[in-house]
Structure formats: structure tokens, C-alpha cells
């Protein structure tokens, strides 16, 4: 299966008795019930429900390994660390010790789980793709054909960091609806997202469009024939 390097990935380790609850209270998906061996994505959002970063949380037992993005890590830490207060949470950046890639065009049966294969941690975060993480001493084959990866993303309407998943959008607008838990209770940005869902109006929506049929300013990932675009629902 094709693999592509995930250059913008970062990895932090969150330790302490309150780590799981801490992330749960600051992000859109339900994390608090995770157990060892599970992987789950969630979105840190601002009070206006704008995306701070998309996180993939690996429950490692005694700690959480959280894959986010190098380009957003500074802002994410600025967002979360003042809120630690008296809670038992420490965060360690281990990005430089690891390599990351995406395996795509697959059919995952164990979505929500992770396992180690050939020295590589495979996180089955979606039916159609996996996040692979390994230490630097592991030989990991991957292609550098980003173009085919993005064509695949367009075909499957998979939003990606820096393209659709940006600080100007909210999770619903970029097609991350499955990461907005509707019954978990309060988290930052919850009121705004809950209102959008209850009213059935989310403003913008991720859409696959044929090139030339829409103004370029709405296009977020440009493909050969089709592109991804975030457009207003009324458009």
C-alpha cells in the first residue's frame, strides 16, 4: 500500500493522572473513555470553535502519545499549558526522535486500535488510512509522491492539515463531523458547534468539486480534474 512521509507531524507525550481528562476538556471528541491500545482523533478548538490543531491520541497505558503538527505546536502549547493549573499533566516533545508517514488507499478493519508491525506503530485512525510512527533507527519505506496522495484525498474528501484543517475553519466546515462528539459535555468551543448542529446550519462545508466550476478562492486542495473546496452551504 502506498505510504507518504508526513513531514508536518509532531509527537508529544502527555503524562500524569489528569492527562486524559485534560485533553477531553479541551477538545471536541470524547477521549475520557479511551483505554490502552486505542487511538482516537480529536480537535482542539478555540472558544469560537476555530481549529487550534487536529490531534491523534494514542493511549499507551501509562501515558498518552499525541500526534499533532509541528506548524501548530507552538500555538497548541500556548493554548493548553496555561490551563494545566494544578492538574497533574506534563508534556514532553519527542518529535525529533520519530519519523511519520501515512499509509493510504487501504481498508482498515481495526479502526480505533493501534499495533506494532515490523518495528512500526500502525495507528488505524480511519477506514481508509493509517498513521505510522517509528523511531529514527527504523528503515521505513515511503514514496515521495505527494501528488498521488492529494489526489487520493480529493477522491475521498479527506481534509488535511494546512489545506482544509486550518485556524480559520471550524471542524464541521472541514468535514471532521465525526470528531465532534455531541454528548460528551462541555469543552472549549462546544457551545458554538452544538448550536450549529442543533440548527442544522454549519455555514461552510467541505466539498469535492470539478475544476473550473467554482471560484479558485474556495479551493483548498487543487487536483488535476477535481479539487477540494470549502464553500458556503447556500452556494
Amino acid at each position, binding site marked *: 500500500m502506498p505510504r507518504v512521509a508526513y513531514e508536518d507531524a509532531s*509527537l508529544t507525550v502527555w503524562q500524569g493522572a489528569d492527562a486524559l481528562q485534560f485533553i477531553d476538556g479541551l477538545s471536541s471528541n470524547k477521549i475520557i473513555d479511551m483505554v490502552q491500545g486505542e487511538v482516537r482523533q480529536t480537535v482542539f478548538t478555540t*472558544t469560537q470553535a476555530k481549529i487550534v490543531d487536529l490531534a491523534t491520541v494514542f493511549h499507551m497505558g501509562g*501515558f498518552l502519545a499525541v500526534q499533532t503538527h509541528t506548524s501548530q505546536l507552538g500555538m497548541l502549547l500556548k493554548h493548553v499549558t496555561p490551563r494545566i493549573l494544578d492538574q497533574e499533566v506534563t*508534556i*514532553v516533545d519527542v518529535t525529533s*526522535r520519530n519519523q511519520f508517514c501515512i499509509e493510504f488507499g487501504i481498508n482498515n478493519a481495526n479502526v480505533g486500535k493501534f499495533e506494532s508491525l515490523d518495528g512500526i506503530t500502525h495507528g488505524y485512525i480511519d477506514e481508509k488510512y493509517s498513521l505510522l510512527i517509528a523511531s529514527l533507527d527504523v528503515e521505513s519505506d515511503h514514496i515521495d509522491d505527494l501528488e498521488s496522495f492529494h489526489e487520493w484525498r480529493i477522491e475521498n474528501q479527506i481534509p488535511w492539515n494546512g489545506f482544509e484543517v486550518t485556524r480559520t475553519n471550524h471542524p464541521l466546515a472541514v468535514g471532521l463531523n465525526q470528531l465532534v462528539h455531541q454528548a460528551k459535555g462541555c469543552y472549549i468551543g462546544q*457551545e458554538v458547534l452544538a448550536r450549529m448542529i442543533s440548527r442544522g446550519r454549519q455555514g461552510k462545508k467541505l466539498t469535492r468539486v470539478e475544476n473550473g466550476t467554482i471560484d479558485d478562492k474556495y479551493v483548498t486542495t487543487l487536483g488535476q480534474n477535481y479539487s477540494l473546496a470549502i464553500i458556503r452551504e447556500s452556494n
Partner: protein
Amino acid sequence: MLMDCGTCETSGPVQLMTPEVVNVNLTISSKAQEMLVDAFGDDRSMALLVGVLSGGCSGYMYDLQIVEDTDQSCQEVTIDGFRVLVPNASSHLLDGIEIDYVDRLMGGGFKINNPNADSSCGCGESFS
């Protein structure tokens, strides 16, 4: 080697933003004092812990507890005989607050009026 979590070695934690501890001034409205008298009775050994937790719709949530003591590093303020404990870690968020009591069937109870809060969520328990 699998994902290298750096937990076996000495990877230093990221720099945390630790706000300065401030000496908290707070007030308790007369209505809230009446309710505290009801809650405490004549026993002044118990204290009202006014803390802040992360989370809620706006980022921080108030946490009011009646405690005898706490493991948290706190500063103690005595107002009209009532012991009030404020954790140092959240002192910057609580300086200048008024503890009030709102008497109504829905959404009633102790309320915090906080001059440091830019916004609050609908239920009033969360602020930023």
C-alpha cells in the same frame, strides 16, 4: 524500535506557561454569606475552596468546594469569619472576584462575578 516516546530517557518537559501568583482580593455578597452560614453552621473549621479547573465551554470552570483542608498550595483569606482558600495556581484568574448567590429555581446557586473574565458560557460556570 517502535514509536520513541522518550519516556525511558530524560527528555525535558516542554516549557509550561506558569502565571504569576497574585495576592487575591475577593468579596462575598451578603446573600452568599447567608447561604454560607446555612452551609457551615457555627463550624468555622471548614473552608470554602474557590478553584478553577480547565475545560468548560470557555476554557476554565469554577470549582467551589467546602473542605477541611487541601493538598493544593493555597492562600487563605478570612472574610467575616469564613475561611476561603484560593489555589495559588489559579490566583491570577480569581483576583477581584465576588462570590454571590443567586436565588432562583433554575440556574440558581453560588455565582462568581469575575472582572478577569472576557466571556462566560451560557450556564455561567465556564469563563475565559
